[in-house]
């Protein structure tokens, strides 16, 4: 089961804080992050990649995006 972070509707920098918290503290290797703006999408991807994560999939979903990543 992948861990899920729902950052939709939250403004900068909450989506990045929530993603980094899950990367550092969560037990699951797979993660799904939901965001609702392009800025959040870019910021989450940039932060995850800086932590050595692999972005496996980014798909539009509803009003935003679903970002799938694997921890490095």
């Amino acid at each position, binding site marked *: 089961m992948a861990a899920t972070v729902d950052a939709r509707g*939250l*403004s900068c920098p909450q989506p*990045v804080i929530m993603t980094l918290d899950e990367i550092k503290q969560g037990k699951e290797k797979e993660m799904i992050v939901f965001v609702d703006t392009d800025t959040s999408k870019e910021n989450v991807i940039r932060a995850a990649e800086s932590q050595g994560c692999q972005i496996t999939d980014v798909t539009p979903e509803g009003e935003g995006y679903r970002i799938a990543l694997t921890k490095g």
Partner: protein
Amino acid sequence: MQGKNIFATRWGIIGVGAVIGILAPVLQKLGNPGNMGICVACFERDIAGAVGLHRAGVVQFVRPEIIGFVLGSMIAAYLFKEFRPRVGSAPIVRFVLGAFAMIGALVFLGCPWRAVLRLSGGDGNAILGLLGLTFGIWIGTLFLKKGYNLGRTQVTHATVGWMLPLLMAGLFVLMLVFPQIEGEAQSGVLFYSLKGPGAMHAPLFLSLIVGLGIGFLAQRSRFCTMGAIRDVVLFGQTHLLSGFISLAVAAFLTNLALSQFKAGFVGQPVAHTMHIWNFAGMALAGLAFALAGGCPGRQLFLSGEGDGDAAVFVLGMIVGAGFAHNFGLASSPKGVGPHGIAAVVVGLLFCLFIGFTMRGKKA
């Protein structure tokens, strides 16, 4: 999925910072006030004066740059399908944060944009302002680490996202209907400065075009001067900072090229030398920007892409400017206003109250 946004890359944000850094001193050369080619706080304050929210005679002018920032961002957001009308993340709190951010900025005499433009023009007092800004943002990051947030937005009607762009377009129409008349302090409903910074401005359409261009680029690149410092403190991330530094370097070189660089602390344009209050004013502004999630420029760009909460912050800043001058809170080249110090203290207490009480997953 859309193609990669090149403006959001490292070189993208550096390029955008450089463009702003070149255009701001050029606007100064073409008529804008000293070390104030662009200042979001000052220009919103001038707008507040132009519509009579305060009657400080030297700072009254509808600044087309601000109008351009919002509309340019909106054009970019629509072109790249990023216009997302949203609202509902503690708007009233954002309004008051906007008001205190403006008051803090007017104690220093400039927003973060102008702080680096002042520095790049040789104004040493800006160093105190930038240190204060960093200190305020650092306090903000402590709250963010403890779970501070303003709650979630909701998706809403496009009309909500159009409100600030429409207000800005309306201001521009007012300017065309009631243009400045030589030697007159009033034209129809609008007030105009006869002297002081409010009387200094680059040609109207040029200012608007530069504003539109910067609004467009900043929306694409997510340029943010508060985020620049916050992301370093919070995440050790230098992405936005590289844009901010690029702005400073480009502005410094442009000022040298245009003979606008003059190093020193005393006698700098629209600046005072009260170091503690330069520091404290910007600390208040920095904390308020950090709690609201964006520098004053970023709040304009977010408003352009449909963020109704950012629009409320902008209106808070404009109303705050009214209070700042009506209550004698704003500084002048002579020093802080009669009640500026009290306002900084009250503002800091307010921000601490917000930071301590708005935590957890109430969203």
